């Protein structure tokens, strides 16, 4: 069973969201998702300043096995991207919830976080896969 930190929120499409408490969130893909994808070889990220809408495909995680779209779990403006992934995409594999984060968003509407799954909800959703 994958690690699913209880302090994070999740989307059924396997993104995690960390509320930084200042109207911004950090977004990545879950340990379960990186495990399904296998060794990461390229990560294509959005640009800082991009405006993203919940459900948009905004990034691509390309592994040895497949290219997988990453969807914006919330709406807002991209305020930072993880530039370390350019040279070290394997961080997504080795530390999916930490150094392997993808991008940060300034929320349009903090209430959107309530619509996301909690750890238990996400665990149930991957059991059904």
């Amino acid at each position, binding site marked *: 069973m994958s690690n699913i930190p209880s302090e994070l929120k999740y989307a059924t499409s396997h993104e995690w969201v960390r509320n930084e408490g200042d109207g911004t969130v950090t977004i990545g893909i879950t340990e379960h998702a990186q495990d399904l994808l*296998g*060794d990461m*070889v*390229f990560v*294509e990220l959005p640009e800082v300043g991009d405006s993203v809408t919940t459900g948009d495909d905004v990034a*691509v995680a*390309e592994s*040895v*096995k*497949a*290219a997988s779209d990453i969807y914006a779990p919330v709406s807002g403006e991209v305020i930072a991207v993880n530039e370390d992934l350019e040279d070290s995409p*394997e961080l997504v*594999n080795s530390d999916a919830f930490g150094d392997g984060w993808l991008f940060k968003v300034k929320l349009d509407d903090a209430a959107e976080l309530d619509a996301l799954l909690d750890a238990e909800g996400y665990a149930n959703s991957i059991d059904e896969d």
Partner: protein
Amino acid sequence: MSNKTVLHAKHIEAGAKMVDFHGWEMPINYGSQIEEHHAVRTDAGMFDVSHMTIVDIKGADAQAYLRRLVINDVAKLTTAGKALYTGMLNHEGGVIDDLIIYYFTETDYRLVVNSATREKDLAWMNEQATGFNVTITEQPEFGMIAVQGPQAKAKVATLLTAEQTKAVDGMKPFFGVQAGDLFIATTGYTGENGYEIVVPQNQAADLWQQLLDAGVKPCGLGARDTLRLEAGMNLYGLDMDESISPLAANMAWTISWEPEDRNFIGRDVLTAQKASGEQPKLVGLVLEEKGVLRTGLKVLTVDENGSAGEGVITSGTFSPTLGHSIAMARVPRSVKLGDTVEVEMRKKLVKVQVIKPSFVRNGKKVF
């Protein structure tokens, strides 16, 4: 109901992620397939290839039978232990399987064929044996371990008896020798030096453990695929199958046209195909920018008269050694090495370079 190799428990013990591979439960990786890939390119890695099928062909007509059965000519083999890579065709000139044949004497050969094609291979071989004095015997009571990489031979050497050391001493590439209980061959599917070792089933797990203790890294099917693709080696079922001519699969070099009176199965079809010059060909593709060329993607080509053609990627992957994507693709014969063609990737067209289908050998880029 899936088959398990004799090393199955060793894979589980090493934390392998197991997948179904044509009815066999095999390790895809033991954590990171990229690390496993690098181990083979820079040090030594090992693969469980016990699922592969060993078939011994013996009898007064063994040579005559094989000269009919496969497109290369086993009469070229005259040194005991020498091996040959070739293909076995149906009457329509399509590849039933690719295989390695080891020669011991003109009445004694060993074949190693793919596991995925085992049943049809054996059926075909038996069907073609009519009128030949040969026995065709599958040898399922063995395990097989491929140990590959620049340090592979040195690490294996630490485990061999004096007698076995003498047997493999100075063995050239593409030879095999029975040394004590082990059949040791200088063959492989990675583009590195190393051995493929056939071992009695009851000794296989011990040998695997000894290799582990000697510092050989276990590698799964994932790394096996990226390694063979970098080496430009075909995978049956992807790069060729029964509907594909060896001329369209970069296997022309495995056909022996001389002597002209050797009537191998498929010869008439291949002769006509060669004369017409219309068979497509298998080339290598290189994409140096981001993205991965995937199996099945469409390739768009333009010949020198400006007419458009189409091809397909038969095997594509990310090359861990090169740090970018490579592929093999079947394209119209008019495509030339050095050309630029386009691949339809994730809704856009990407330019890629056409090269010979060989990317990495002995740890080094070769194009």
